[in-house]
């Protein structure tokens, strides 16, 4: 989808902003974490829906962002101060750098996108998780705990982001800004370039567009957004471990985006919130059956709802707005 209707997005964020009036604290806290997953979902929707690059390891960037925050927050980075704020910055930066590096391997002209590319990301996901588990610096399979919360500047002195309400509001603002930013990017000229490359890279090249550069930018942007989500997640969770960058979480991300709709980051975010909320409600009851249910859900959605639950809806609204 090239031009997302603005109204549903605004309504969505306003509705969420009004939640604190009705919702209990614990729900806000949970939603704040879910919004981090929402950022991850949006990053995949952008990369896949707009760029046509199906990544099986998108959580890798989420996890790297989380670990970056952890390392900076615990002062484990040599020559750099112990600072959660630095951690958040690195959570944005490190995954982007990693994406550019990996991109030079993966996104070059010689690798066609499509199934082969997807399998490559699968392999990367496996490597990433194994490296994290094997690294004692990163805490091995136990990960790193005791991470400091984010601190925000305040006239009366820096405030730690610990309570659910302010955390939720901060996440809400961040997610909204990112979503609207992505929507603008999608509607922009650059967004059209990305879609052109997605549709027919060869033709785009003949028109003077460099598919590699375009895809690399998309890959990097996706990594940055995912990394931001990871950093913010670590700040709330207080703890990072290999599953945060593993295939399991990457697969969940695929489910969120497939269910929500890959055509629109907003739809994907809504998909993540929906699935995570349902998991919260049914998860305990289903127990080990939840991953099974997730698998079936993905299967059903791919077979019968390729546009996603919310994606289809938004597409219909978009068509109505344009006569």
């Amino acid at each position, binding site marked *: 989808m090239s031009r997302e209707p603005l109204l549903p997005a605004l309504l969505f964020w306003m509705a969420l902003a009004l939640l604190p009036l009705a919702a209990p604290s614990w729900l806000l806290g949970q939603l704040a974490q879910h919004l981090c997953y929402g950022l991850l979902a949006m990053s995949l929707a952008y990369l896949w829906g707009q760029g046509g690059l199906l990544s099986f390891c998108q959580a890798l960037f989420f996890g790297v962002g989380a670990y970056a925050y952890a390392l900076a927050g615990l002062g484990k980075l040599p020559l750099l101060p112990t600072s959660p704020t630095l951690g958040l910055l690195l959570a944005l930066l490190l995954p982007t750098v990693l994406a550019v590096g990996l991109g030079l391997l993966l996104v070059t002209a010689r690798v*066609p996108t*499509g*199934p*082969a590319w997807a399998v490559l990301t699968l*392999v*990367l996901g496996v490597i990433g998780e194994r490296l994290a588990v094997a690294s004692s610096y990163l805490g091995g399979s136990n990960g790193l705990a005791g991470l400091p919360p984010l601190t925000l500047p305040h006239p009366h002195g820096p405030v730690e982001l610990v309570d659910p309400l302010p955390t939720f509001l901060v996440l809400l603002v961040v997610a909204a800004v990112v979503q609207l930013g992505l929507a603008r990017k999608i509607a922009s000229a650059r967004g059209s370039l990305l879609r052109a490359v997605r549709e027919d890279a060869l033709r785009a090249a003949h028109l003077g567009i460099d598919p590699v550069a375009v895809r690399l930018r998309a890959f990097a942007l996706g990594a940055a957004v995912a990394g931001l989500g990871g950093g913010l997640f670590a700040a709330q969770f207080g703890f990072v471990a290999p599953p945060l960058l593993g295939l399991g979480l990457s697969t969940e991300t695929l489910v969120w985006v497939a269910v929500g709709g890959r055509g629109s980051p907003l739809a994907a975010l809504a998909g993540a919130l929906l699935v995570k909320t349902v998991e919260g409600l049914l998860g305990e009851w289903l127990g080990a*059956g939840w*991953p099974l249910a997730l698998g079936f859900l993905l*299967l059903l959605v791919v077979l019968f709802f390729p546009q996603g639950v919310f994606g289809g809806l938004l597409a219909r609204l978009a068509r109505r707005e344009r006569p």
Partner: protein
Amino acid sequence: MPADPTLLLLDALAQALGLFLVAAGLAVTFGLVGVINLAHGELLLVGAYTALAVDRAGLGYWAGLALAPLLVGLLGLLLDLLVIRRLRERPLDTLLATWAAALVLRQTVVALFGPASHTIQPPIAGSVTLLGAPYPVHRLLVMVLALLVAAFLGWLLFATRLGLMIRGTVADRTLAAVSGLAVARLEALAFAFGAGLAGLAGAATAPLLSIDPQMGLGFLLPAFLAVLVAPAGGPAGTVLGAALVGGGESLVAALASPVLAQLVVLAGAVLLLRRVAGRRVGRER
């Protein structure tokens, strides 16, 4: 590090043949039918657990080895009819759907057998003295089975009518239809056959490993590598591919460490997929 280079080579050969057995099914479903089935590892898993269940039921190992390919073959047929066929024109969605199927299969196994790992005793326990060193009999069995499967595949594809029909369908699907071949049915059959091979491989290698529900991925990636490295399409090339990948991994593991070997194999996958990807995936249909 073992002192004897011939034992090293024997190990490499065993690994290569074992990998060929594991990859043979993929050579059929991917190399012939052209489907990237991310559930291949889980098909092997179901084969291994079938052997486990049959053994537990007191029917012995051989019954499990015989039942596994039939059961998993049926599973493969189901997968083709319900999922793969509908997504023929959508390769990315095929990846997603088979990945989802893998998840479903894996979790079903967890639901039925629990998350812990199990072991299954080989039917003929003990070792045989080869070149002055003890070598587990079951490993030799697996090697023999691999060779038998290779021979069978070659015979099936090149000496039978069915094999000719399948090769024709692979060479040019449209022309095959126009020549009166029931292409969809042949592809379903080939896919089911590939799945059955996976089931057989799973049951055959089960006594050599610790069986746990997460082992599917460990089968999938080396198998894909072997198929992709293969210089020629189809099962013949896979023997060579398996030799390169399996043998290579074994040698690195022996000379350095198993973990490093895995990482090398995976890194090799990345580099090789770069070079090979354009050739095989996204075939013209």
